[in-house]
């Protein structure tokens, strides 16, 4: 059967691709589009390693059909850094808020979305927001602290 033709925007750039009806967004990102920053952990929406944004909202790309990207604004971890790393990325490096790194792209995408809508989250809010991002290395504490510290830095920079 003929493939579906999809026109979308990924990290601000127009992008077209062909996919099968049942193919997930994650498969297309990691396969034909070569954007391997999004990881497949569970494939069932439990771990958050495949987190991307669709029109600014975080979703698990393993639970989205690639065909659904038609006309949408997609954001992936590859679009997070500009000329310099995003403050969250820099803070994660400085505070060793990662070990194996598989969960990190998803955690960063989710944390960025949180800080965009809530620049001053409580620890409780950070923990609940990131409850869909599983990490088997860090025990979460360094991740939570890095997000809180970045939020404080960004608030300071904004003043």
């Amino acid at each position, binding site marked *: *059967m003929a493939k*579906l033709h999809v026109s979308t925007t990924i990290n601000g750039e127009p992008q077209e691709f062909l996919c*099968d*009806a*049942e193919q*997930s967004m994650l498969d297309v990102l990691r396969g034909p589009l070569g954007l391997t920053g999004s990881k497949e952990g569970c*494939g*069932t*929406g*439990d771990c*958050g390693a495949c*987190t991307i944004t*669709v029109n600014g*909202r*975080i*979703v*698990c790309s*393993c*639970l*989205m*059909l690639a*065909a*659904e990207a*038609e006309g949408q604004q997609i954001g992936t971890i590859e679009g997070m850094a500009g000329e310099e790393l995003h403050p969250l990325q820099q803070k994660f490096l400085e505070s060793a808020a990662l070990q194996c790194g598989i969960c990190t792209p998803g955690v960063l995408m*989710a944390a960025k*979305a*949180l800080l965009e809508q809530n620049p001053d989250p409580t620890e409780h809010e950070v923990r*609940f*927001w*990131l*409850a*869909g*991002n599983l990490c088997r290395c860090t025990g979460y504490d360094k991740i939570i602290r890095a997000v809180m510290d970045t939020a404080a830095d960004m608030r300071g920079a904004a003043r």
Partner: protein
Amino acid sequence: MDIQYVAPKTLDEAVRAFAAAAAGSGRILAGGTDLLVQMRNGVVAPGMIVDIKKIGELTAIEETGEGGFRIGAAVSGAVLREHPRLSKVWPGVVEATNLIGSTQIQGRATPGGNLCNGSPAGDSVPAMVAAGAIVIIQGPNGRRELAVEKVPKGPGRLNLEPGEIVVAFTLPPRSKGSSDAYLRMIPRTEMDIAVVGCGVSLTIDKGTCTAARVGLGAVAPTVLLVEEAAKALIGSTLDEAALAKAAAACSAACRPIDDKRGTIAYRTKVAGVLLKRTALIAAERAGGK
């Protein structure tokens, strides 16, 4: 096998496409958080996927006056939460829907999908039952309405005719002093499936409960409307005796299974405990207790 994907812009087109799919092979895609997992696990192998998120009526929240709302079946939990007034009038419906999964899941998962997945443990369903939600359904033979508690038939099975699509939920107008609440029991704090879920919607007038509805989840093959529990609350001041009677009615309505999440005895007891707590939260929100 070849799978077709269509994303129609109108409900009529969606109904036609869904009805045209070879017998039983069509699947409606709303948030996809159940459907894609089921496809991956080989539980379902659709011949056609009908994505309903491009249809305006299915993705809109409308206020119908006096606290009434019409919620499109494909509205995500995140959009429900962000609505400026829905949480004020129907906090129980919103908190129940928002208990489903993580932030990422909330960006996609929908009350329509939660209902049509047919799980007895779907969190939004008992709250919708308590709210007295009416489901608008459209199919090849036109449009009809069904009380939300009449939609589930059993685990994974619905009282929908072939080709019918759930379009929206209608929440009725609210009199003053009304509110609702939803509580669920899970063995951890987040990201789990209800052992028992309880929704209560009520009206308090001068300290007396004048109207109530109770929905119970995860204690029977379908979500239950527990009319005996509501009767025990109505006319009372939600005193301990009335709450105990309503709790007993909830426990009596339970026909649960034993599984790794909870035993029959445990679920039956917890159903009563949750009723008391949920009713008091709803009453406090209504300003009456």
